[in-house]
């Protein structure tokens, strides 16, 4: 039983997506070894995905008995506000850039852009904070913890 009595924007659609995803997981789990035995490698994945199917159906059923919120926020506004979308895009670019330009350059660039966008104190402040952070991170992880940091394929 839900302790939250109001539906969040897009919650029903999300519950439907969970049911579909769980169904897909179950079919993938079934393809491992089918119902050949009780101790095969596919049994636990089928049990787990079976629990996912049942619980996602219960979650979906639960959404029908809850009230719609009086707030007029759309699903996009609730789930993907512009700030989250932009930040996630920068994070994705960062992940793509690491194998090419290496950790130091990619992280420095990411910190600069992200702090500039979120803090809005101007490029100079963002540059100083990112540079100081990178020096601290390099010192702590590379020198103290002796962690190998990812290098880029371009240089």
């Amino acid at each position, binding site marked *: *039983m*839900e*302790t*939250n009595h109001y539906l*969040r924007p897009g*919650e029903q659609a*999300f519950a439907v997506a*969970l049911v579909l995803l*769980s169904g897909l*997981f179950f079919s993938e*789990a079934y393809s*491992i070894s089918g119902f050949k*035995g*009780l*101790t*095969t*490698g*596919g*049994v*636990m*994945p089928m049990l*787990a*995905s079976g*629990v*996912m199917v*049942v*619980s*996602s159906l*219960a*979650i979906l059923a*639960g959404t029908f008995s809850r009230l719609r919120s009086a707030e007029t926020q759309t699903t996009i506004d*609730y*789930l993907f*506000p512009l*700030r*989250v979308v932009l*930040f*996630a895009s920068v*994070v*994705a670019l*960062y*992940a793509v850039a*690491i*194998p090419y330009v290496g950790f130091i350059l990619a*992280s420095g660039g*990411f*910190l600069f852009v*992200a702090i500039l966008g*979120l*803090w*809005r104190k101007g490029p100079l402040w963002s540059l100083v*904070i990112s540079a100081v*952070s990178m020096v601290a*991170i390099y010192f702590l*992880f590379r020198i103290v*913890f002796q*962690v*190998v*940091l*990812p290098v880029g394929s371009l240089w």
Partner: protein
Amino acid sequence: MIETLGYLAISWVDPSLLLLTALGTFAGIYVGAIPGLSVTMAVSILISFTFKWDVNEALALICGIFVGGVYGGGRTAILLNIPGAPSAIATAIDGYPLAKKGQAGEAIGLTTVMSVVGGLIGVCALAVAAPLIAEFAIKFTSREYMLLGVIGILLVGTLSGESFAKGAFAGALGVMIGMVGLDPMTAESRFTYGSINLMGGIPFVVAMIGFFGVAEALVQLEHVAKLPIKQSVARVTPAWSDVRRYFKLAIKSSGIGTLIGALPGTGGDIAALLAYDHAKRTTKDPEVPFGEGAKEGLIAPETANNSAVGGAFVPMLTLGIPGDAVTAIIIGALFIHGLKPGPLLLTDTPHLFWFIVGNLTLANLFLLVFGLTGIRIFTKIVECPRAILIPLIVVLSAVGAYAIQNNPVHISWALGFGVAGYLLKRYGFQVGPVILGVILGPMIDSNYRRAMIGAQQNVGQFLYDLISHPISLVLSLALLAMLISQLPVIKEMRQN
């Protein structure tokens, strides 16, 4: 006896371990206090860097962070009305009103002393109870471990989420993630799709960094523009009369905290809320009403959440079942170091158990020192804007995910899990059960299969075994009771 004392004192006499414990406790206080950073997040990122260290060094740092972090969350709850950690939610109810009255220093001083009292009681309980439980747990078979694993995942889902279905879904999702890779018993491919990277499985640290670190960073974006509140802090050392007056309450709250912490899948947050509720119900004439700055409302949760630390280590070290999310990560750290938490840990590696006991005690003493000093600098540091913290969390998560196997693909995986965790969190799912599922899933899988082979692959015999052996019967009944208690009819009856 002399040997045990020697193990207990390892971190007290070795300068590097002493320093690491102090550093961990100090860092933990700040990590726990800065809103947006959590102990779970810090420990999960840190684990990937410490796995090349000696196990004692890694544990000294992690224990320090754990003890400091649980306490640190209460400081921001008092000063800024923002609990730095879930275990400090109840602290804010009476702590912040006290700060508004200009008694922030006094409140912090009192919570520091009582937190140390709670922490030490939790450690004592660990030292006394764990060997007894471990001796009993040696009798456990595959069946019992399978049941314990399932109970552990479901307990977290039941107690921490919005609904049982969401908890069960999150736990099962975690088990699915834990199943990726080659089956350790038959080498059969499971969800690998021909990828070499997936054949080795998904390291749980990568999933943890994604679900706790990156997801939290995305959630925190909503609060990026919030300005921190500034508080003035005067005298920190608490009055002796206050310590004496509330000592009995601290002892009772420590008992609640230790017990709740020792239940698999619970933790400091639930312990703190229950202790607050207990204090509210049993305190007849508080000086100030609860919710308006009652010291009882401050002491009960803070003592309970610190005593829950010692409690949480009990199931972890004796049964291999985590007491909460942080101990789930510590289990992973022990596995990385080639150790197997469970009843045999105490007989095979007693030095490790007593080292943890001694180290937790030391961390609590450091807590007293750091807790009563440096408050003014502390208030400046916790005002660090989220706009700087959030990108830093992402960078630290990337280093952590990469460092575990020096594989750049793991960075993308962690970021992907972060997005999944963000979506789940936005719709009221807890990510704790997902991580427990990732860690306990393979254990449940292998124990289920062993138990089923033991029952000659006969479902009837397997079910009969679950109820015909005393320990299995108790665990099966506990599992059944948990499931029944979640039925809508029963919940409605309880509410009425």
